[in-house]
């Protein structure tokens, strides 16, 4: 898993609530048997017009937001399907962090397992951030995991919460499996005395 420490980047605003994983990666891109190339389908229903060309109206297609590694979206981001393809699509597209007022559980979990940092910030901060980014697309944001702080374009900073265990995994780039597998003895003991 990719590690995450600190990230300074421009950010793309996506002023939409309840962005479900069907929007992040529509079902037609789920027919692959590998993780590669999912970025192509990222937000494809919004990003492309019916003839396949780029939709110039869509925020991420605007020249000023190219190369942004941070996405700033509305509440309940990543709701719906458990498809981890949504996270693979975002990371393949180039995002390393998503800021939103709230995330759906499964998406939040899946992100942490792929080095994509989901950051929960208060609704009013996100609102202001959208306005700032739309007015000044070159503005940079810093997401610092060790100090759990986001530094906003105006220099002010906001704290965010993250489970300490998950934080450690991200900082070191390790996944759950190694941790679980060290519990071999406990697992054997557990399996030996199942309730029925």
């Amino acid at each position, binding site marked *: 898993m990719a590690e995450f420490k600190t990230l300074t980047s421009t950010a793309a605003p996506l002023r939409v609530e*309840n962005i*479900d994983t069907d929007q992040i990666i529509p079902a037609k891109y789920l027919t692959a048997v590998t993780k590669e190339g999912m970025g192509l389908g990222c937000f494809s229903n919004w990003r492309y017009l019916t003839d396949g060309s780029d939709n110039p109206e869509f925020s991420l297609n605007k020249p000023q937001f190219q190369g942004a590694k941070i996405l700033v979206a509305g509440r309940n981001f990543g709701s*719906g399907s458990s498809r*981890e393809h949504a996270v693979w699509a975002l990371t393949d597209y180039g995002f390393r962090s998503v800021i939103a007022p709230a995330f759906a559980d499964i998406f939040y979990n899946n992100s942490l397992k792929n080095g994509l940092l989901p950051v929960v910030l208060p609704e009013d901060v996100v609102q202001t951030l959208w306005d700032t980014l739309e007015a000044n697309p070159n503005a940079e944001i810093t997401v610092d995991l060790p100090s759990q702080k986001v530094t906003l374009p105006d220099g002010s900073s906001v704290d965010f919460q993250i489970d300490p265990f998950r934080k450690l995994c991200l900082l070191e780039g390790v996944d759950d499996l190694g941790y679980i597998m060290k519990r071999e003895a*406990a697992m054997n003991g557990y399996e030996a005395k199942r309730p029925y």
Partner: protein
Amino acid sequence: MGKTLFEKVWDAHVVAQDEGAPAVLYIDTHLIHEVTSPQAFSMLRERGLKVRRPERTFATMDHSIPTRMANATDVIPLEMWGTEQATQVQTLRKNCSDFGVTLWDIAGEVQGVVHVVGPEMGITHPGMTIVCGDSHTSTHGAFGSLAFGIGTSEVGHVLASQCLLQSKPKTMAINVSGQLSAGVTAKDIILAIIAQIGADGGTGYVFEYRGSAIEKLSMSERMTICNMSIEGGARAGMIAPDQTTFDFVEGRAHAPKGDDWTRAVAYWKTLPSDPDAVFDREIHLDASKLEPMVTYGTNPGQGAGITGHIPKESELENPAHQRALSSALEYMGLSEGQAINGLPVDVVFIGSCTNGRLEDLRQAASILKGKQISSGVMGIVVPGSKDVRNKAEAEGLDKIFTDAGFEWRGAGCSMCLAMNEDKAGAGKYVASTSNRNFQGRQGPGSRSLLMSPLMAAAAAVSGHVVDVRQML
């Protein structure tokens, strides 16, 4: 202090718990399907790992497969599928055979939507932990199991270790009292709950549906409700096991037998929440006040009763809700304040793990019998499993559907997520018995109106959304 059903099941599955770390939770049953498992098996191969408990792992094919039939009994042959879909199916076959996992193949007797097949085969028991790389795994909570969807990384973790690292969620009691009136169903209960709490109202919680209205429901109806827990933001929803549950499980292929059965039932009877158990949050719903529900928007929380209206932006306080409403209505081509009764319908989809079981098909057929689908409306019925299809055919339900002008299909997910060729066209309104009305969920540009099988059948006949209670 007593424990809730959830806490009992959780506590019984904690293998290890370090201070400040999530629990290592044992998983009793792992369901897999062709779409979210290939990358997990690749991870096993890369790391030289085996499947720890192949006998606890079950696979079927449902999401991307075609449901069109070559003849009366078989779906079309593999060579005629989309190439990528065929590759997924062949990859699953190879993975199951290489790793020793039971596969309910499309070519076999048993197959269908993973959450319909699991309970049918008796692998879903009270008190179990069940996971699947699919968010509607919450369906199995109807049996009093803790069942939730996971991502593909976690599918790999469970394959390799039969365990998951999980932080303990909070609990929410959803008390449903009162008697449902005629024409109002389990689907309406869950749509009403989600409309009340919102599509993210349950984030971080496990629901327990309880109360007199829930106790009266059949297993099929309980599954409809638990299925959509995820649409309210909860990863899992549970219902206490009772005699209805035991009667459903008993005698099925993978149900405990003999002394094991007796021991199992004795254990299952200890699972319901203790009278003094405390939930982190409680909500109440009076089932007798409900009417048939229909969604008008692009998340399952945007629903209203059949005699109601789409809200006006000015009626909503939260700016985020206002934004969500205006973007939903723009996509749906509907207006604020518009009446639910009379909303347009072009396509009717009856199926999915929410409402693709035998009882659902019986309900839809009861409305359609001797009637014709409205001209200009296209309808398909997709049974949740081969077993559902066979039983429906034995009762002559297929004949009622085809006589009415519906297409009768093979088992699978089909137009619930439109990964195969079953897509409603752009701009089309779909009266759907499935669980998600996201933009383009049922095909690019499609507009979903979620409702019960009774309401979908009534819409098919009328050519628009109509109150099924007038047709009973």
